[in-house]
């Protein structure tokens, strides 16, 4: 348990991906197969059911720590996390039981499920007495069903692969499906690969550069193919050796989370690889990105989830057909074959990303103005004679893909409320409510919690503490005196909000300490933006 708890702390405190990878690799190198199997299980995001109700756990910890309830509450307020608060408050352990992770889970945690409350309580007390501080934290997280570590499945995959000397893509494929935390299953992860397993290998994604110069400098518009820049998840759909794989950008295998896309794959001819965008999609148009995001966050796909946020693949490139790698061919040729393939397949969840056509750049620029209404981020520009590159090709090579994005909405607004953050930011005021002027009063219209650097958050946090009017629970009202520029991606009418509008993805673009609060924007401006957005909707 000690090694795993230490790993969790290492992963938790560093933000460096390399340091995380190193810590994971070291752990898997040393762990025995049974422990490694459980570690993969937890790190991949599986967690045991909550076995102890939070309230009971809290009461027990308060008793063991011999402090009054109000003091426990103060401590919890400062820490912001129950498992961690308890770990800090319990008395020093006696002799620490450094049994392996697998034993702690199988012999001590899993049996809790079937015990009556008083037996659970005794088992908890024994566990706490046998664990050191870090161990208690992990244990508390596990029994409350709240275990979560900030590592991607991809990083775990890479670490297991590095520790075992196996191709990471092979490990990713083998990690598909239900993960049974058994030593045999872990050993199978690291077994010699046979050639049939190479079927799932994706191509490196070709990545676009942001267009930061005048579009005219790209030459004649006729040399270019334009299409919408979709706001979804970039994915490769692979059909080989009778199997289907869906990879997201960054080598993450997401086949199981996207059954609709996997179904397209099953209908494709063998030896086909498509590049495209997965979108939440209904009636031939994208649904808000937030729906897709929620959908991707779901661990289990209930019929309701599938109904509320159905996904589709908008295909924009054909990388392989009949088992032949087409990447060196000109884009126009690949596109033509792709169009024919999509047409022939006539699959309800597969569409061709339509070409956006205009006679000149000015015409394209006008069409690009429709982006917001279409829920896209702007335009993509691809040279019609260019090959499909690997990764982000060097600027100036001529074959680049360009993303020609629209600017997000921007308004200047006044900070009026602040709330403590969650998790790692629980002790800081990081969640802010912003208001704009309306008839001489400030009307809240957006909550934002991202966009500032840690240093800026610290500054704003200090500002909030110095300018608090009132505290209610975790929220403080703040003397209106700080202006920030707020950016957002979309705006909608909303009777539920006092301001009458709801904005999408609000974020802080910068602190405007050069502006006085009377220079902040008004509700009228938001309504004007709303009217523009309505006018653009096709």
């Amino acid at each position, binding site marked *: 348990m000690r090694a795993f708890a230490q790993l969790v702390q290492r992963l*938790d*405190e*560093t*933000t*460096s991906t390399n*340091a995380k990878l190193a810590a994971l690799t070291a752990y898997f190198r040393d762990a025995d197969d049974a422990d490694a199997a459980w570690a993969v299980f937890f790190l991949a995001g599986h967690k045991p059911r909550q076995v102890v109700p939070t309230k009971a756990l809290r009461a027990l910890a308060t008793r063991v*720590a011999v*402090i*009054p309830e*109000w*003091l426990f509450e*103060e*401590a919890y*307020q*400062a*820490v*912001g*996390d129950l498992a*961690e*608060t308890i770990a*800090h*408050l319990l008395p020093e352990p006696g002799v620490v039981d450094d049994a392996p992770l697998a034993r702690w889970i199988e012999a001590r945690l899993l049996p809790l499920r079937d015990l009556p409350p008083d037996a659970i309580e005794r088992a908890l007390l024994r566990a706490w007495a046998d664990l050191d501080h870090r161990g208690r934290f992990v244990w508390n997280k596990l029994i409350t069903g709240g275990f979560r570590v900030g590592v991607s499945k991809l990083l775990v995959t890479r670490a297991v692969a590095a520790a075992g000397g196996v191709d990471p893509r092979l490990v990713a494929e083998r990690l598909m499906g239900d993960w049974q935390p058994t030593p045999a299953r872990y050993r199978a992860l690291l077994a010699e690969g046979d050639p049939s397993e190479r079927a799932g290998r994706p191509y490196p994604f070709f990545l676009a550069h942001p267009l930061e110069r005048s579009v005219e400098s790209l030459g004649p518009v006729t040399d270019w193919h334009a299409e919408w820049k979709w706001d979804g998840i970039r994915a490769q759909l692979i059909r080989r050796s009778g199997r289907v794989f869906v990879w997201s950008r960054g080598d993450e295998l997401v086949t199981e989370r996207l059954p609709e896309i996997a179904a397209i794959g099953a209908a494709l001819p063998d030896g086909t690889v498509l590049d495209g965008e997965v979108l939440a999609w209904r009636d031939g148009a994208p649904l808000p990105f937030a729906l897709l995001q929620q959908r991707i966050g779901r661990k289990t796909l209930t019929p309701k989830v599938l109904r509320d946020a159905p996904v589709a693949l908008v295909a924009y490139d054909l990388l392989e057909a009949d088992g032949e790698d087409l990447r060196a061919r000109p884009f126009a040729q690949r596109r033509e074959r792709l169009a024919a393939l999509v047409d022939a397949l006539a699959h309800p969840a597969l569409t061709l990303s339509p070409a956006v056509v205009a006679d000149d750049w000015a015409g394209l620029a006008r069409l690009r103005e429709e982006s917001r209404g279409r829920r896209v981020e702007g335009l993509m520009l691809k040279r019609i004679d260019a090959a499909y590159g690997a990764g982000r090709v060097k600027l100036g090579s001529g074959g680049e893909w360009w993303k020609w994005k629209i600017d997000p909405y921007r308004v200047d607004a006044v900070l009026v409320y602040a709330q403590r953050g969650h*998790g*790692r*930011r*629980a*002790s*800081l005021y990081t969640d802010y409510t912003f208001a704009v002027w309306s008839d001489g009063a400030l009307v809240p219209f957006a909550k934002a919690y991202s966009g500032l650097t*840690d240093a800026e*958050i*610290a*500054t*704003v*946090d*200090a*500002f909030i*503490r*110095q300018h608090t009017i009132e505290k209610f629970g975790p929220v403080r009202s703040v*003397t*209106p*005196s*700080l*202006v920030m520029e707020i950016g957002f991606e979309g705006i909608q009418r909303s009777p539920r909000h006092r301001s009458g509008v709801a904005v999408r993805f609000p974020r802080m673009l910068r*602190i*405007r*300490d050069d*502006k*006085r*609060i009377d220079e902040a924007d008004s509700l009228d401006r938001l309504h004007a933006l709303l009217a523009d957005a309505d006018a653009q909707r096709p």
Partner: protein
Amino acid sequence: MLANPDLIRATDRGLYCPPGDFYIDPWRPVDRAVITHAHGDHARRGHTHYLAARDGEAVLRARLGDIALQCVGYGESVDIGGVRVSLHPAGHVLGSAQVRVEHRGEVWVASGDYKVESDGTCAPFDPVRCHAFITESTFGLPIYRWRPQAELFAELNAWWRDNAAAGRASVVFAYAFGKAQRILAGVDASIGPIVCHGAVQVLNAAYRATDVALPETFAVGDVADRTALRQALVVAPPSAQGTPWLRRFGDYSDAFASGWMQLRGARRRRAVDRGLVLSDHADWPGLHQAIRATGAERVFVTHGYVPVMVRWLTEQGFDARAMESEYGGEQDDGAAAEETPDAAPVSTVAAP
């Protein structure tokens, strides 16, 4: 018996002793100031007369320059306006003192900042019996319990050793005065060279001038051999984080030393590889041990978790109250605030 009038009370300039007409760690200019220690929130410029512990003289002069300073040894008493004043080790940083004030048989002690565990870089905390004790409360929550220093330094040494073996410098961010020297005195200097930022070197000199044994430290310019830098332990103030000064160390691993590193959230926000829970303040058990050792019935709580400490002490049967102060800025949850605010300026944003 009539209640004794308060020997020390809070004013808008700082803690004030009316019969002696002097202030303790005042934050506005006064005629007579008794200084508990040289951290920026306690020792400020602009007073006419200063009184401080002799051990702190070199540091105080290094920080405040040419001041009218009278120094006394620990335990030695002086008379100020008929009040007997003496200074007693607070174990916080070099020269840190508790101020004992005695007038007509009534004894009050103002703790300044203190730490009960001794560390070899300053005189260890010495409890003083008194009727009323003014205590700090920076870490006044039961979640703050420090592990033994030996464990912490074993961890620090192991980290440094691993990094050195991988050819990577180990950068520790620690406050230049106090924390930095504690680290120097505690690490295993045989692992590799120790490089200190200029801000730390100045204080190292003041410590050495006061006969505190520290291992040899180099300024970065003194190290000609670049490979030696990759084996080095680098001690720098937190303000150096993210500055070009660090570039010369190449791909380094970093750590932050502070009591706040006890909390996961604070560790992650610092965005360093390691959080070292090392504080020059008393932890929760330390605060209560110190308070009990004074035998005081009345306890005044200043900078830190004031309401929590007041309520807890009241429930424990003390006559406990809050005492206003401006030390350390606001520290009500101790995250944004730092242990020694002089090293971490909080910039202000848009005042109305």
